[in-house]
């Protein structure tokens, strides 16, 4: 099963709706390319919607970390939205849950970006 990423704009925030698996190979590459593309266009407020992401492996975790630091290094913000239990647990055990800003509600997440 591959991964799909689609983007939409809400109040100056780019929401990336991801579905499928963020794993070594295609899934990680799609995420990397999407973030690179957004940063290239100057879109630095990014909300990754992981609600339909069923699975993430160590490579996918690495890609999320890479996305987080790339956006931050360019003065932007990256937040995560709608974690499934599996992904939530994975971020907990890797101690990344507190590193990422994780939200459960889209409107709240959008409001939490700096203006």
């Amino acid at each position, binding site marked *: 099963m591959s991964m799909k990423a689609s983007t939409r704009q809400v109040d100056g925030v780019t929401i990336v709706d991801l579905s499928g698996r963020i794993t*070594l190979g295609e899934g990680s590459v799609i995420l990397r390319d999407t973030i690179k593309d957004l940063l290239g266009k100057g879109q630095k407020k990014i909300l990754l919607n992981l609600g339909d992401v069923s699975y993430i*492996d*160590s490579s996918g*975790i*690495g890609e999320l970390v890479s996305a987080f630091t790339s956006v931050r290094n360019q003065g932007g913000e990256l937040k995560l939205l709608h974690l499934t239990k599996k992904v939530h647990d994975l971020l907990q*055990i890797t101690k990344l849950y507190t590193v990422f800003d994780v939200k459960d509600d889209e409107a709240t997440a959008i409001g939490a970006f700096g203006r």
Partner: protein
Amino acid sequence: MTAPQRVSYRMESTLESVNKAEEMADQIAARAGFDEDTRSGVSMAVREGMINAILHGNAYDTNKRVNLSFEQNACELVITISDEGHGFIPDEVPDPLAPENLLKTSGRGIFLMRAFMDEVRFRKLDPGTEITLIKRLKSG
């Protein structure tokens, strides 16, 4: 008492092998009677072990293979994954939970294997590395 059951595969150093091994692990863990969360952990540990073998061990070398075996006895499911790479020293892999390593983009595979299995062992081969992953069956 059930006799031990063992199944072995010799696999190519490709991403497809990683995915195939993960699927097999899930099926075998289901047959062993593990619940869904445990199965998911076992298949993730196998995925990480395969990534370790194929990416870091064999470095996608098409001339090198990965051996994968599943063995179930009355007490546990034992999975071994061996590569033909240069080998590595597991103790030298930095702790991914240390504050200075949290934002590293790699180095979590062995940690995840240990998190989801009851026991993880490494053995140096000549050439390569063998990883043994053990999940105990709940005694009923």
